[in-house]
């Protein structure tokens, strides 16, 4: 049975190829993108970061993702705790409802959000876009923290209470430290979910708040500028960085267990 490993290797190459190629393209030296590049340079990155509009988009994306990350992680942490430790009817239904935002086609959600935002004058409002992104990031946060909190022995919480800690103290001194790796993970992926989100941003951005994905979209629709390769490579870099950071956090926790 050598066919299976061969197939898996081939598929992995196909999966990674587009991403790797875009990253290589972004370092092209010539006056247009070419693969394989004849020479390497940082010119497209220089153009990306030198352009005030691209810089503004980077700033907008970062602010929105920070708002979404903070909100989704906090709210999601409380909700995950309620799911894991709470005792109430309809748990499964409630969780399914909270997962709906990633199930319902984002086009529909975005149009509805736009419809309301336009009436309320919130189109282009960075904080509001962050709040809207948070609803998409919330399911991600929930799924990560549900499994994290399930790994926290309920007896540790009981022990803290039996030793006289108040509920709040138990939460801060025991639950939060033990869930810390999961919290970091959840925050990272919530940030990424918002940073990469396109459709909601497309509808809510207006002219003032164009995120990086929105600018890429516009460029792909009108005229493909070579800078897109550099912006894409940058977004891939952010993803890679977040995955590495997450692996490092998990790795540290894993090591702690083995010792």
């Amino acid at each position, binding site marked *: 049975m050598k066919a299976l490993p061969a197939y898996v290797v081939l598929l992995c190459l196909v999966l990674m190829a587009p*991403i790797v190629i875009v990253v290589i393209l972004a370092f092209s030296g010539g006056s247009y993108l070419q693969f394989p590049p004849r020479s390497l340079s940082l010119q497209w990155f220089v153009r990306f970061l030198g352009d005030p509009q691209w810089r503004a988009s980077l700033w907008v994306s970062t602010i929105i993702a920070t708002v979404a990350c903070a909100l989704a992680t906090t709210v999601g942490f409380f909700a995950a705790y309620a799911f894991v430790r709470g005792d*109430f009817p309809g748990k499964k239904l409630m969780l399914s409802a909270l997962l709906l935002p990633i199930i319902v086609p984002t086009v529909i959600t975005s149009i509805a959000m736009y419809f309301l935002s336009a009436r309320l004058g919130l189109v282009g409002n960075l904080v509001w876009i962050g709040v809207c992104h948070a609803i998409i990031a919330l399911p991600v946060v929930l799924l990560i923290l549900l499994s994290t909190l399930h790994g926290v022995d309920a007896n540790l919480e009981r022990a803290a209470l039996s030793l006289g800690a108040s509920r709040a103290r138990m939460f801060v001194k025991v639950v939060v430290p033990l869930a810390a790796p999961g919290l970091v993970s959840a925050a990272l992926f919530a940030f990424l979910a918002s940073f990469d989100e396109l459709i909601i941003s497309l509808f809510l951005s207006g002219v003032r708040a164009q995120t990086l994905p929105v600018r890429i979209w516009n460029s792909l629709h009108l005229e493909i500028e070579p800078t897109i390769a550099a912006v894409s490579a940058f977004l891939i870099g952010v993803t890679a960085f977040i995955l590495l950071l997450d692996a490092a956090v998990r790795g540290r926790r894993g090591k702690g267990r083995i010792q």
Partner: protein
Amino acid sequence: MTRPQTTLLLLPALLMLVLVFAAPLGWFFVQTLLRDPDAGPLWPQIVSVVTSRAVLQAIVTTNWISLLVTATVLVLGYPVAYYLANRSGVRFTLVIFCIVVPYFTSIIVRTYSWMVLLGTDGLINDALVWMGIIQTPLKLLYNQFAIVIGMTYVLLPYMVLTLYAAMKSIDTNLLRAARGMGASGPMTFFRIYLPLSLHGVISGALIVFILSIGFFITPALMGGPSDVMIAMLIERSVEITLDWSSAAVMSLLLLAVTLVLYAIYYRLTDIRRLMGA
């Protein structure tokens, strides 16, 4: 341990779901379909939108592409999931890395990558011409083929991860028992392994199909003028023709189908497993 107060911690999330998600949806449908003075009664509106040629065509295209993508993803994903479920160590890490990195990369970036590969002067055509296999570039982009490639690329990780979870829960002793009783490799696979992984197949296919029918970015960028999926039609009604009531009717339809499929998914899948219970 459990106290009523613990349940209260759910409130912020529910509040956010209602205010930022449910309320805008509800308000949107009520305003465009019921309150709009020009719109008239609801049922005729729905009938006229659903029976229009463009919408019917989009429904057919959406279903066709979604089925094609679901089947492709399943066929491509099953062997990889099987491989992952039976490996550990470096090989597992490497393969899961190749699945997860695209999974967490922005959809717009992934779509752009395939456009670079499939374009008329894209890498694949360049390579084929250079190797002398073809003389003139093939039209690989802006058609259904490109949409299926792009969507398969985006949705494959969902299928692989769902199947992997299902396969991982199969007790390998059952396979050993079957082999011990004299079953051949293929018999063990078809009589034991496949049936036991079937709920993963169904869950994975459902989730991929649900996500497919609402797809927007990839078909909008990689499809041709005639390859219009329903989500694109909704977006165009709002952005180009400013026909809010058509957009609302199509959204309602798509939402209803999505929710029905999600309800089936909900019945078939033990969502509590997500909680690790």
